[in-house]
């Protein structure tokens, strides 16, 4: 288990850092911290790893306060962004190295390294040097090296950024499988929101050093706590509106929209959001919140088609795998409309 309590850190003469972070990763859980560059996610990782010491707050591993321990004493398995394999050692030498520095005898450490290499499917490459491996293989060696000494947790720093786009998909699946197989508590940072949603049991969104939301992927996507989170996680349509009552809002271009029951006060100005794939083109007559629409641009994206539609003066984007040829009306299903303070 990893727990951060009121963690505060900023670099000298700079406001860049992380501010009052509280975060918990349960034993065996896979948490993904997602944020743009400069959001503080790398700082957070370094604070947990022990490369940085927080100015305030505590870092706990399995209920033990490790805030003042050096990185070497924390017993964490770290996979850096570019893997940092030791080029002059073989794959076996790399994976066995954490045991070597702990004084494990050669026979024993080779046995354990070979076992873990077998688990990640690299037993045939133990005598290769890192430079002879593909990017995906290097990544697996780095993960094996991080797991060989049974770490308290695994920390992954943008593990897919050094891979070709075409290899990323399969390596993501593989990472998820290895994580489940070892049942190791895992914290990964990434800037890729799709990756975060796909891999994380939970996802934490960081922006400018602040933790904006920490929830399960589906909730994060459908019920973001703020406009910033909504924008960051996927494409979104925003519509300004005013609250009419607990189930209706009024908009300038789309008239009165039914929404799911909410707690905003009547008369309050709010911002409504709806995802492009939630909008229904040429809906059946029994669906609520219909409006006439004109297509201003179509983009073919393969699996999806994106339409930019004009409803009054509001531009909406709509995504669908199989949209009708001609779109005349759209519907905004009430359960997919989510409201924010404005």
């Amino acid at each position, binding site marked *: 288990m990893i727990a951060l309590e009121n963690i505060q850190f900023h670099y000298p003469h700079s406001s860049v850092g992380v501010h009052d972070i509280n975060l918990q990763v349960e034993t065996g859980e896979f948490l993904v911290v997602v944020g743009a560059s400069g959001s503080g996610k790398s700082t957070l990782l370094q604070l947990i790893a022990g490369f940085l010491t927080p100015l305030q707050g505590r870092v706990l591993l399995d209920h033990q306060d490790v805030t003042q321990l*050096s*990185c070497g004493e924390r017993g964490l398995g*770290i996979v*850096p962004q570019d893997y*940092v394999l030791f080029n*002059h050692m073989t794959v076996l030498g790399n994976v066995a190295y954490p045991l070597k520095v702990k004084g494990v005898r050669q026979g024993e450490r080779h046995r354990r390294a070979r076992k873990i290499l077998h688990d990640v499917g690299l037993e045939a490459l133990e005598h290769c040097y890192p430079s002879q491996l593909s990017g995906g293989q290097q990544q697996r060696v780095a993960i094996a090296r991080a797991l060989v000494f049974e770490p308290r947790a695994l920390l992954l720093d943008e593990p897919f950024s050094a891979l070709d786009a075409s290899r990323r998909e399969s390596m993501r699946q593989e990472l998820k499988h290895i994580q489940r197989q070892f049942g190791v508590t895992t914290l990964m940072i990434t800037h890729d929101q799709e990756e975060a949603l796909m891999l994380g049991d939970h996802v934490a969104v960081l922006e400018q050093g602040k933790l904006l939301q920490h929830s399960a992927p589906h909730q994060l996507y459908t019920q973001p706590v703020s406009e910033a989170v909504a924008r960051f996680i996927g494409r979104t349509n925003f519509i300004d509106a005013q609250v009419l009552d607990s189930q209706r809002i009024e908009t300038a271009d789309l008239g009165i929209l039914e929404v799911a029951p909410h707690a905003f006060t009547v008369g309050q100005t709010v911002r409504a959001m709806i995802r492009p794939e939630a909008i229904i083109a040429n809906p059946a007559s029994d669906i609520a919140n219909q409006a006439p629409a004109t297509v201003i641009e179509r983009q073919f994206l393969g699996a999806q088609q994106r339409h930019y539609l004009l409803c009054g003066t509001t531009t909406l984007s709509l995504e669908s795998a199989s949209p009708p040829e001609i779109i005349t009306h759209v519907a905004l299903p009430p359960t997919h409309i989510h409201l924010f303070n404005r």
Partner: protein
Amino acid sequence: MRLITYCYLVYLLAPIVLLLVGAFGDQWSNTLLPEGLTWRWFISVWEETTYRNAMLTTLKLALTTCLINILLVVPLVYGVTLKFPAVAQSITRLLVMLPVAVPQLVIGFAFILAFSTAMLPWLGSPWLLVAGHVVVTFPYLFYTVYADIEASPLKAYERMAQSLGAAEWQRFVHLYLPLVYRSVFTGSLTVAALSIGEFELSNLISGFMTQPYPVVLIQAFYRTTGFACAATLFLLSLALLFSLFSTLVQWRLGRSSSRELPQ
């Protein structure tokens, strides 16, 4: 452009060819080229005790200079790269390069001044000569090793190994030494070449019994052309040997740098 290179080349190699011609020529007086082909100049250089001893002195001097340089530079570069803050690194770099900027004549005179006093009467001692050579060659080894380590992943390795709990001596032995030994080797060959050819400082601070080869060589310039050429060729060959070897090793290693050596 090619023309300039060729001209420069001729200009550069012509004197060396001349040396060869002179050394192997039997008679050379008032003719364009010497007459006859002979080994005798080389034999007479070899037979003179002064030259043989000087050659031995030079080799011992070069070897000692290399060893002391390695013992100083290897830990220093490790410390500078990993322990010094950025400003201290810049200053160290500047200071280490100082002996290159200071004319050797000045270094030599400063040595005379310092070590001919009653308090430190070491002028002419072989160890002072070694110290002088170390001062003059140190920057080259330091710079070679430092530039190599700066371009290496040492800092990332260190961080990784720290996170795995490796102690400083383990990181030094397991990670730093394997990264550094090749540039230490090529840098040392350069140091040897420089030490072998060093005249200016040696001429000022070497004692009568510890004169290295270049200092003895300059006296040969006033003897017969053949003898002088042969004596000079000894020095040239030795210096070029080390330099070329260093360059070749660098090239070989450069080419195969992606294929690393085993543990």
